[in-house]
């Protein structure tokens, strides 16, 4: 799938924690941050994006449904999850259900910019 230049720069972030939001915006760069899952789902369904980053703590209990709905809206959209160390099994479960990858907080998230860059290059080539 070929993304427009606007979509290439657009990363949808679902995160309510201010600290974590600042960290993600520093790592991801141009992004649109939403505090609730319904707003993020609407943003994903409304316009194409480069990727979605979901802070699983903010969708606790409904993470599987949210990821499924986002994949339903944009099947090719890579979805990345941020999990706490104790929630890593949940990250693995989401990986099986279609998420692109997950990052264990607080240090593993440093891999996110490199993965997004590689993902963007791959999708542009496609």
């Amino acid at each position, binding site marked *: 799938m070929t993304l427009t230049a606007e979509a290439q720069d657009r990363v949808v972030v679902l995160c309510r924690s201010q600290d974590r939001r600042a960290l993600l915006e520093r790592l991801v760069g141009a992004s649109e941050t939403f505090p609730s*899952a319904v707003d993020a*789902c*609407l943003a994903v369904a*409304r316009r194409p994006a480069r990727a979605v980053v979901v802070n699983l*703590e903010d969708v606790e209990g*409904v993470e599987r449904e949210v990821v499924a709905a986002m994949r*339903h809206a944009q099947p090719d959209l890579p979805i990345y999850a941020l999990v706490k160390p104790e929630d890593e099994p949940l990250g693995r479960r989401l990986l099986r259900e279609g998420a692109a990858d997950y990052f264990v907080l607080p240090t593993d998230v440093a891999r996110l910019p490199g993965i997004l860059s590689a993902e963007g290059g791959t999708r542009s080539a496609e």
Partner: protein
Amino acid sequence: MAIAAPQEDVHVADTAARTSLLVQQADSATGEALLRGLRAAGVRVLAVSTVWDAVVEMERAGGARYLLVGIDYFGRHEFRLLPLVRREWPPTVIIAYLSPGFEHLGRIAELVGADVILASVEEASAFVNSLAPGPPPEVQEAAPLPDRMPEPVAAEPPAAPVAAAAAPVIEVPPRPSEVHAAAVSEQTPLAAEPLKAPETAEALPYRSPILEALAHAAAPTPPPTPKASEAPPRRSPALDALAAAVARTSSPAPRSDAQAPPRQIQPPAPPLPQADEALDEGQVIGTTEVTEEELRLLLGEDEENQPGARP
């Protein structure tokens, strides 16, 4: 009597307006009755499993005529759907249905934007029946053309009784807050007319709460506040009780003694227990605009500045 030409329903002008969206809820007799009834009535219904899918489908369809959501198992994440739909697709009528025992969630749904609350299978059936196309309103047929209008006869009855005797016409009532404000304004000493005797819930037709709420929700603009003497029947027993209390308080005032000094009437406290009973019956008493911050507080999400804290 002139035969009215078939009128085109403005609500079915496009696909989005024809489609209704139902967020299904497992083991809900009300939801199943709604789905069956709507499809039997010819309403195009798209059923989805989660509110997240509902958001996606609403965006794809550009809105919907009705959004029906089962809220028995709604939590803080799911309830955000209602203000989102109210903000993004204002014409959509939001209908929340619930099972007996979940009336407290119905109150939250009211606060965050639901237009109609269906609390039982019977109310769901009444709602579906209200969607069935009925005869055109009698008041429109009763108006003859000007060139055929006969000379006015003194004995001719006015049109109002004809309309009252005709099929029920859905009138757009004022918002409950406006009714409440009108009732409170009646307490002022300058009020010339006392309130009418309140109507009990038993006196109202069964479908009137749903129909009136639906008609109110479908109205493009809020109607002007009518005068107290022209106010339509109140739909909430709680408001009726309040009006009754006001009427009891103000009834001893001598109407003929116009020059008497105005009395200072203390407004009675709203009958809270009766309001609870009214809500337990699944009636809609109105919606309230809440801000995002108020919604967070309502749903218990005040951990904005506490990263890592669980609700």
